[in-house]
Structure formats: C-alpha cells, structure tokens
C-alpha cells in the first residue's frame, strides 16, 4: 500500500509538478534522512544544509525523470544523500591546509570524520561516533529500524531489498556497531 501511495505521489510530481505531493513525501521521509545526515556530519547546521540540498535535488530529479525510473522515494533520497555527503567531505578535505588545520572548527570536523569522539563520555556521542564508522548501508538500516521504528517490510521497501536481506543486513550492522562501542 505504501509503495502504491508513493508511486501515486511521484506520478503527481512528474505529471503536474504537484508541490503538495512533494510536501507529503517530505513529511514522510524527512526524519529518517535527517537522522542519517546528523550521524555522519559534525553539526546539525551541516545536516540542515545537506537535508535541503538532498530534497532540492530529489525534486529536480523526479520532475525530469521518466515514469518508473525511480519509484522508491526513500531509496532515491538516501542515494542522493550519499553523494551530498561525499561532496561535503571532499570540500572539507580540499580546504585542509596546515594553517586551516589549526583552526578549531576544522579540527572538530576532522576528528568527527576520522571517527574519534570529540568529547568522550556521553553515550550519544559514543553512539554517533560508532555509527559514523559504519558503512552507509548499515547506518541506514539501523536508523530505519531503531530510530524510525519501522518494521522489516517497510524497511525492505525503502531500501529496495527483501525483508530477509534487511534482517541479515541489520544483524551484520549491529555486530559491526558493537565492535566500535
């Protein structure tokens, strides 16, 4: 049912540039995507920017895409998010110089990128650091299951996998996460 509704909304965007349909998709998926971005970026401000960029690109992509080209909105935005994250860290790396390395903000970002907790001691920071060390797919499945509290069938639709594959991925993701805690 969820999938058909999503197809309907995507059809509305493609055919009628329906802003309301896009608003509904935004409401539906913003929380999971934001959690994903926050776990991989040093600050909430960066995650806010990335969130905006992802939805902007998603709107432009859907408007110009052909029917059935991408019928899973969640898959699409997480796919875009990975590129946005790559661009973000690439830009950060290119900015790195000996002088800039001395700047406190950059040190914080660099530490977060390399998986070192800035301020050890709080559980949340530990979890964030551990999550940031995981492959994106593992991170995504943990967020959808334990932050968004979605069932396996729903995660399977969003990740375009079978429910059995989702269970297996989640099992491996948790095993990997435990190593970093």
């Amino acid at each position, binding site marked *: 049912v969820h999938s058909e509704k999503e*197809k309907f909304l995507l059809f509305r965007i493609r055919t009628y540039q329906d802003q309301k349909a896009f608003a509904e998709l935004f409401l539906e998926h913003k929380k999971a995507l934001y959690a994903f971005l926050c776990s991989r970026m040093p600050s909430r401000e960066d995650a806010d920017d990335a969130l*905006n960029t992802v*939805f902007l690109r998603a709107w432009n992509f859907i408007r110009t895409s052909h029917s059935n080209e991408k019928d899973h909105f969640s898959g699409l935005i997480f796919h875009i998010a990975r590129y946005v994250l790559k661009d973000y860290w690439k830009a950060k790396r290119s900015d790195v110089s000996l002088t800039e390395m001395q700047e406190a903000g950059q040190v914080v970002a660099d530490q977060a990128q390399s998986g070192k907790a800035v301020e050890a001691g709080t559980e949340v920071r530990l979890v964030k650091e551990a999550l940031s060390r995981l492959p994106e797919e593992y991170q995504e499945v943990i967020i959808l299951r334990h932050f968004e509290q979605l069932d396996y069938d729903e995660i399977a639709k969003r990740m375009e996998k079978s429910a059995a594959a989702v269970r297996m991925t989640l099992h491996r993701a948790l095993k990997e996460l435990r190593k970093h805690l």
Partner: protein
Amino acid sequence: VTNRELIALLTKCKDAPELGGSVGFGHTEKAWARLAGELGFEAKLERPRYSFKDYLDFFTHQLSHVWMRPVSVGLSVFALIFGGWVATVNASFDAVPGDVLYPVKLATERMQITLATSGQQRARLHTEFAGRRLDELNAITSSDVAGKDVRVKAAVDAFREEIASVNAELMEIQTNDPGAAAALAVIVESKTDAFQAAINQSEPSLSDENKEGAAAALNEVAETNSQAINAIVTSHEATQSQETEETLQKNFQDTLKELQTRIALSLGRLTVIENALKAKEIDDRSFAERIAEARLAVNSHEAEVEKAMDVLAAGGYRKAFDLLAEIEVQVAHSEEIITELEIKLTTGL
C-alpha cells in the same frame, strides 16, 4: 555489550539532538519553509487530499504507460521481427544468384545445415540444396535477366559446392555408420539422374566458360553417384536387404541402358562417317584404321555386357558394377575416336 543492551542504547539515543532527534515539528516546518522558498513553492506543509478523479487519472496512466506499454512494445517487436522475417524468407525462396534477396535464401539454408543434428541430415539437405541450385540454373537460362553469364556461373559453382558437401558427408557416414550410408546413398543416387538431366537441359544455352563448369559439374555428379552406389553395394553385401537390392538392380539397368544407348549412337555415327567417306570417294588408310579401331571397341562391349549381367544375376553386384565401369571407359574411348574422325571429315584436316 550484548545485543539487548545495544538495542536499548540505540532506542535511548534515537531522540538525541545530535542524531537528529527531538527537533520537533517546528524544525520540520522550518526546513520545509527553506526548501519551499528556494523552489518557489506556495504549498504549505500538510498532507494533501486527492479526489477520485485524481486516483483514476493515476490508474489510467499506469494502465497505459506502465502495464500496457511493455506488452504492446513486446508484441510489436515480435510482429516486426518474426512477421518481417517470415515474409522476407518467403519472398527469397524464388530468388536466383544476383537477386537482392538471394543472400537471405542462402542464409536460411546455412541455418538449416547448422541446425542439422547428424551427417545424414546434412547430406540430405545438401542434396536438396543442390537441386535448388539447378532450379535456379534453369530459371536463369530460360529468362532474360541481366548478367546472365555471371549468374549462371554462380549457380553452377554453388551446385558444385553442394555436391562436394554431399560427397564429403557420404564418405564420412560410410566410415562411421554404414547402415545409415545405404539409406542416404539411395536418396543421393535417385537424385543424381535428375541433376544430370537438369544440367544437360541447360547446357545448350550456356557460354563456353559456363559449359566447362557444367561439364565439371556433370563429372562430379557421376562421381557422387558412383560413390553412392559403392555405399549401397557395401551395405548390401553386409545386410542383403530387399531395398538395397532393388536400388542396385535399378541402377544397374539404368546404367546399362545408358551405355547401350551410347553404343548404338556410336555405331550410328560410325556408319555416317563411312557413308560420308564413300560419298566423297575418300580412300584414306588412316581413316579406315581408326574406324576399325572404334568399331572394334564398340562391338567388343556386347560380350562384356553379357558377362556383367551374368555376374549381377549371381549376386556379384560389386563385380557387375566394376565391369560396367570398364565398359564405360571403352565407350568413352570409342566416342573420342568418332569425334576426332567427324572433325577431320568436316574440316578437311
């Protein structure tokens, strides 16, 4: 950390602001306002309501674009490829060398050869295709198409190739499966007469160059026939079957009949030469010697023919056919002498 503890920890952290939690609906509205501003949207952040017409519109679109399109595209492609191909192949069936569709005809034949599962099937197909080449030869010679000589040459060459393939397959089958070779040889043998008749029919209208090709083709057909007979004899010696016996009897009679016709013709030609010499009052000793030599060669066949027939009656098929082959060599020799005399008489050399 146990699994249970880990899951409890994740659940505890899910609302942490550092992980995007506890931001409230205000944050979502703010994010939407920013996005809407950049995209020039007027829509507010709320769940829309759609009418029945909107859903019907979606359903119709899905039906026509998503579900029906692949089916219709598939059917169209199938109709285009299969229908077009069948029509082209049918149209190519009457094509002769030099026609636009002739390569299609050859391609379908090559495909049939490729798909044949045994040497026997391949030999049958090559025999059938050889017949087609001769049909083409007759079609070309009896028409006024442009480039006749080139087309005839192509047809004759293709025929010879098919015959060579029949020979090759026949030899291989004889070695590997003598039982199957007999059945195949019967078919090949029955076709060779038709091949010879078809080539002879076209021969008068051929150019000198193509006549040479046709003569070579006739020789190759005779060779194939001889090989087929050999295969049948070998099989008959082993199996003594009724079918092979009938085929051998028929072939022997046909060959004998042909030889007798040639002998009668040779005797007639010799009589004509003698009469012409008398009429011209030519008393040339060399002529007389050559005529005597030819007549002797022709007349000596009678005893040989009788011997061959006796051997055949006794069941000595191989010996009988060997005797016929010897007679054929002698007849050919006498025909050469007669032709030489005819040339001398007509040219005055």
